[in-house]
């Protein structure tokens, strides 16, 4: 696979659409354990990215990621903004001067994003956060590549890992953010930040798995 900046922006568009369609679901999840503003903040960020889509599509990969970082940081704000900002700054560093994203680079980008979020949030897998789907996605992807699986299998493994990580947050006790003040630490509820991370990983995998994309 060879994914261009323009195609990455197409992925973001798919994520923006999926996010937009799930307003009530995400807001309800967040109201159970948090402030109830996660969807609104994330949506604002993606709406702004889509307003900039033409400009973004024309940038080299590394600059694209830097621009996404700064936009998400300032527009989403709060906790999610700075975490995605940190993730995309690390992604920009991982992309270096690449003209397009191939499978090994995609793996490196996702690994860098995971490390960026974990270090900024001082969070580990199992803390009931957006880290969980990303962590399992990256692990599954690396494992599949080491086992010599083909591209479609690697991307499917990434997608399945992300979904499993998202679903696993339901049983976890929150260690970060407002949910950790709840008497039950949010156990029984999916983490809304993990769900919106899953949307992004899901749309990324689906886009790349679709025939004719990123060839």
């Amino acid at each position: 696979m060879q994914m261009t900046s323009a195609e990455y922006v197409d992925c973001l568009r798919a994520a923006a659409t999926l996010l937009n369609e799930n307003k009530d679901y995400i807001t309800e999840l967040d109201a159970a354990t948090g402030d109830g503003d996660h969807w609104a903040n994330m949506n604002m960020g993606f709406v702004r990215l889509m307003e900039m889509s033409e400009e973004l599509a024309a940038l080299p990969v590394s600059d694209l990621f830097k621009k996404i970082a700064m936009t998400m940081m300032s527009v989403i704000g709060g906790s999610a903004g700075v975490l995605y900002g940190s993730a995309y700054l690390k992604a920009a560093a991982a992309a270096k001067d690449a003209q397009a994203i191939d499978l090994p680079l995609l793996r490196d980008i996702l690994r860098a994003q995971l490390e960026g979020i974990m270090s900024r949030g001082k969070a580990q897998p199992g803390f009931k956060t957006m880290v969980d789907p990303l962590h399992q996605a990256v692990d599954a992807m690396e494992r599949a590549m080491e086992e010599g699986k083909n591209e479609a299998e690697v991307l499917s493994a990434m997608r399945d890992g992300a979904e499993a990580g998202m679903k696993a947050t339901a049983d976890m006790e929150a260690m970060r953010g407002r949910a950790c003040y709840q008497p039950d630490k949010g156990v029984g509820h999916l983490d809304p930040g993990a769900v919106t991370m899953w949307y992004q990983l899901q749309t990324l995998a689906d886009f790349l798995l679709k025939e004719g994309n990123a060839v």
Partner: protein
Amino acid sequence: MKKIINDPNRVVSDMLRGIAAVNPKVEYFPEAEVIASKEKREKVGVISGGGSGHEPAFGGYIGRGMLSAAVAGNVFASPSPDRIIKGIEEANGGKGVLAVIMNYSGDLMNFDMAKEMAEMEGIDVEIVVVKDDVAVPDREDATGRRGIAGTLLVHKVAGAKAEAGGTLAEVAAVAQKAIDRVRTMGMSMSSCTIPAVGKPGFALGDDEIEIGMGIHGEPGIERTGVKSAKELAAILIEKITADYDYSGSEVAVMVNGLGATPLMELYILAGEAEAVLKEKGIRPWRWFVGNYMTSLEMAGCSITLLKLDDELKELIDAPCEAPAFRV
């Protein structure tokens, strides 16, 4: 929702414009939602910031002897690093900047990132984190204890030390000393409505109060029936003194209102608190009674104790020109 606003999505900008409109000594930077002192001198800058909705925190605490700049986030949400950097730049008088923030995940991450970015610009930044809310157990593994009204006493101490010519390390050290010795316990009697959300964040029955609720409506320790001022003073101070030993000490006491509680009730509570403290052998050196750290229109209060020594007494007593903090 009945509120004196123009547009629920513009309350932060409109409020900051108002703060700057009535205080000729500060300037408002709308693109960053920063309020900063116009007076630029060679001293350590002390800044704070966090979600809005806690007024006069923090824009009302700018003035000689307290904060140099304040960075506002949206209601109950941390400001982003690009806003914080503007606050750091405006507060920087060449001797570095101390950020005194409260212990919430979002504030920790955003200020941390802003510190890294400011240091790349060559500005020294230290961060100290207030965690005074004894309703929450302090934990090393999780985010732990929240920062609430005790934060203002830390701002006062740090601002006075900076005014006295302290270095960044000295100002940070004295702020940390105050953090180590300050504890707060609160209670709420009604909910509040984030303007952009338009409906109350939680519900409390007419005859119900919640002991230990956070200043964003986070769950407290227990819901119970309405208590007298005397009972409340005893409950709140008991919880504080069970966490930290104040016996025989001189203390600064803050009796804080959450926004909708009249000063009449705060003074009734302060009178009862004075009696409880006397009984426990705790000696109030100075009292602060008022709406210092609010939670929109939430009704309720908190009591804060700061254990003083000679250095902290001098800093608490030092002159202060912040409009919302009079000594």
